[in-house]
């Protein structure tokens, strides 16, 4: 079970911020989320949305272990 975290407008859109999802790789995890909520599935692949696996930004697919944390990060704005 990977721990999935949503931030910013993604969390508002999905209506949740944290959820356990069973997936052996990132592509499977994305498919599982899109299956439950197709609009979220699209939002997660939109331009400007980054993915951090165990607090490191990744690009493309990546294997996930049981203890993995997967965070979806919309465009950032601080200050």
């Amino acid at each position: 079970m990977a721990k999935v975290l949503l931030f910013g407008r993604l969390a508002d859109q999905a209506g949740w911020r944290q959820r356990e999802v069973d997936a052996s790789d990132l592509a499977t995890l994305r498919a599982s989320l899109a299956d439950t909520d197709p609009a979220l599935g699209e939002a997660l692949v939109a331009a400007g949305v980054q993915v951090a696996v165990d607090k490191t930004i990744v690009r493309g697919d990546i294997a996930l272990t049981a203890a993995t944390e997967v965070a979806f990060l919309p465009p950032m704005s601080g200050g």
Partner: protein
Amino acid sequence: MIITLTDQPFEPGALVTAFCADRQETGAVATFVGLARAEKGAATALELEAYPGFTDSAITTIAQAAVARFALQDVHIVHRVGRIAPGEAIVFVATAAAHRREAFEACDHLMDYLKSRAPFWKKEHGPDGPRWIEPTARDRTDAQRWDQET
């Protein structure tokens, strides 16, 4: 170097006092305070979200790079998270260097980074409900100024 995320209001002046104290070889301290604007009533509060463990680590990395790049003697960054009322401080950056050019440029650089690339998500609450704020075109080009230099 101190990097702090806090969900409590903070007082920038007190941070400046501490940051300037007991410096014998610092000629220049540049600071920046970002405040929440009321936007003439259009903004009743800001809400800042961070990713604990990721956001602070990302800011620490950029601050360490700025120390090396601008020959800084010290850096202090404080960033609010959670709900912020108009007039309250959102962000504080202080840089200490031997000379003013380095202190100014490092402070400017760190703010450009914090505005457009640091992992925060910012929601503005107003009479018409909340809206997410994403970096402006100017925020992006401001941050790119530092990429073009070597």
